[in-house]
């Protein structure tokens, strides 16, 4: 590097000005597109082209697009755009105005931010007559409707469980552990339980068991008042305790750090894995991949979290991804028509999930499960406290919906670095600290 001090200062100034101009003109060029107002909302008939951002295989929508265009001849096209790292990419795009017309609300969006980004779809009062799981609600207004619903239980291989002589769903965590042990004893080549440790999003979904243990629709709403959710038999203690015990008793895969979900979903179909904790969406979606691999998707079954209240299994159902309309969309009429069309024509059924519509059917693959389990949904957060749980979870550093803290539990259970009680004490301390920070 030549020392810059020997050059005339005048030249450096000129350089600065020129490049600033270039930068400015580039910036102006970027901004120009979005400021041009080509709003054509004068007409109420769906028309033109819209874009739908999704995390799933675009071909899922092929039939829907064709039928939609049939119904509304003036619609030119519905472009389906798949984002691979959905939440991160969608959030980045949401810092501009250009994030499609219809899109799934990315994880990590707080409810109090919804009005900044999305079009209100109606009041909760009114929409709750048709739809379940209106969790994306702020100030009484609904901003998103689920594409499909999930129950959070356990995916299992029916043959393996039957070979171990188990015919009934386990009713307590202890019984669940015994059953896994029995599978290990009778079929030493089978992995009784696969944690899917490597894929944070799978292990993060354990958070979906909350509420199912206690059959308390208000469990999540009570979290901000709890100083120690990992104690006294609260849901978090039961579910994370089960995870710790499964790992500590050596009922999991030998090396959790390497296997990806793409591998384990085939292995469970092949009977090399007996059980995994994934949402009910997996029955249909993993089933498809298993069939492609030449295995029998009917071997897959779904069981509830091993806890009963008065002799009944209760399982929480919730939305998978919530579809919303971009506040800055130039074609909101068509976007709304497309969203309603997807809900009415059964996108959820096509994807093998529970229907968000109150009158929607239970998909074939989940009938067996739904017959033995009472499904219920969590109560919506009270008005004004929609973001509270999220805020505490972030401030505490635990980040409930992220897989990281459960990976830590698995690490500790494998190495014995912390006992179960130490893990819970640390989590309780962090939660109390987060609570103090948020509630002041």
């Amino acid at each position, binding site marked *: 590097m*030549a020392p810059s001090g*020997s*050059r*005339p200062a005048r030249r450096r100034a*000129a*350089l600065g000005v*020129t*490049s*600033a*101009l*270039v*930068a400015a003109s*580039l*910036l102006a060029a970027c901004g120009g597109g979005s400021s041009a107002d080509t709003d054509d909302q004068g007409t109420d008939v769906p028309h033109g082209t819209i874009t739908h951002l999704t995390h799933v295989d675009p071909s899922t929508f092929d039939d829907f697009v064709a039928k939609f265009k049939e119904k509304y001849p003036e619609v030119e096209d519905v472009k389906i755009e798949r984002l691979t790292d959905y*939440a*991160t990419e969608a*959030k980045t795009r*949401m*810092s501009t105005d250009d994030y499609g017309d219809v899109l799934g609300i990315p994880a*990590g*969006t*707080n409810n109090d*931010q919804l009005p*900044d*980004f999305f079009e209100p779809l109606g009041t909760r009062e009114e929409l709750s007559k048709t739809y379940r799981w209106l969790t994306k609600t702020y100030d009484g207004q609904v901003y998103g409707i689920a594409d499909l619903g999930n129950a959070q239980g356990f995916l299992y291989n029916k043959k393996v469980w039957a070979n171990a002589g188990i015919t009934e769903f386990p009713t307590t965590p202890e019984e669940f552990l015994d059953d896994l042990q029995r599978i290990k004893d009778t079929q030493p080549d089978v992995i009784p339980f696969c944690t899917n*440790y*490597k894929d*944070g999003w799978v292990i993060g979904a354990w958070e979906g068991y909350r509420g199912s243990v206690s059959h308390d629709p208000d469990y999540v709403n009570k979290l901000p008042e709890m100083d120690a959710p990992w104690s006294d038999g609260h849901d978090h203690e039961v579910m994370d305790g089960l995870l710790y015990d499964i790992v500590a008793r050596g009922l999991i895969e*030998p*090396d*959790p*750090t*390497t*296997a990806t979900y793409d591998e384990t979903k085939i292995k469970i179909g092949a009977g090399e894995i007996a059980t995994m904790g994934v949402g009910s969406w997996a029955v249909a979606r993993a089933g498809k991949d298993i069939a492609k691999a030449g295995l029998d998707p009917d071997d897959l079954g779904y069981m509830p979290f091993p806890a009963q209240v008065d002799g009944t299994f209760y399982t929480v159902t919730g939305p998978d991804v919530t579809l919303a309309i971009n506040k800055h969309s130039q074609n909101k009429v068509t976007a709304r028509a497309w969203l309603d069309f997807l809900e009415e024509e059964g996108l959820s059924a096509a994807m093998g999930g529970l229907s968000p519509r109150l009158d929607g059917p239970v998909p074939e693959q989940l009938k067996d499960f739904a017959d033995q389990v009472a499904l219920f949904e969590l109560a919506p957060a009270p008005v004004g406290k929609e973001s509270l749980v999220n805020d505490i979870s*972030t401030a505490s*550093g635990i*980040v409930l919906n*992220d897989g*990281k803290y459960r*990976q830590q539990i698995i*690490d500790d259970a*494998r*190495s014995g*670095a912390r006992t179960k009680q130490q893990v819970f004490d640390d989590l309780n301390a962090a939660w109390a600290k987060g609570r103090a920070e948020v509630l002041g």
Partner: protein
Amino acid sequence: MTNVLQRADRPAPAARAAGAGPAGRLARTPARRPWRQRLVPYVFVAVPVGLLLLFTYWPVLNMFWYSVTDWDGLDKTKNFVGLDNYAAALTEPDNLRVFYVSLYYFAAALVQMALALYFATVLSFKVRFRNMWKGILFFPYLINGVAVGMIFLNFVKPDGGLDTVLTALGLEGAIRQWTGDPALVNVTLASVSVWRYMGLNFVMFLGAIQSIPREMYEAAELDGANRWHELWLIILPSIRPIVGLQLILAISGALSVFEVPYVMTAGGNGSETFVIRTVWTAFSRNMVGLASAMAVVLLVAVLLVTWVQRRLVPERQVDIA
């Protein structure tokens, strides 16, 4: 032929003005040149500088701004919180614990330098297929870090390539859970890092060694020096600045490890590095403000290390940097 060479040797006016040539040469150009001609170099230089400002300095400035706000990556409003994020970045035990992982990479970097020096010394003497060996040693550095992660992910997983080789050699007993064993995971990942970066160290050492005049060795040999003496008394003293530079690069590299562990374990099983934690803080914990502060802390740490190096090794000796 000579004509062509001469023309090629002469730098184009634009290149000369772009900052490569000494200032004195420009001063010789006639003062009465039309302004348009004088503008030409700036037009050329404006494009790369503009892009640099737009895509490097502007985002960095933004990062400094985010680091003093409570932004979550999405909110329309960013509240100023002063130095709270810096306090959190430097006091949260989880943020500091991850620096401990860097020690593995630093130790690995020392091994890597030793290996690189060994190969560079051997290959600076007459060896059969010298260029082929050089190519083989340098090649891993050319592979993208993510690809390296993928390759080794499959290589070290249970029943993967490494286990197969060990079994074939009859060393079944040596098989471990290379990334699953908490005591071993960082060693495995650091070894991958050695595999990847050794080539760069090697090339730098080789360049330095080859700039040592041949006569030195000849004179030494006349005085009865063997190869070992040559290494200790001629090669090492001559390349001391390069060794110093490599050491600094090793420290700043160990602080900012990212790709290989991120792809292979995503920071699981106690292999989390500072940068992995920064990314997690920004995009999973949704605290972009705090993550920006962490990034600034890392930047300052690396600058500090570089500054110390500049003090220890006089600048003129490391101009190859």
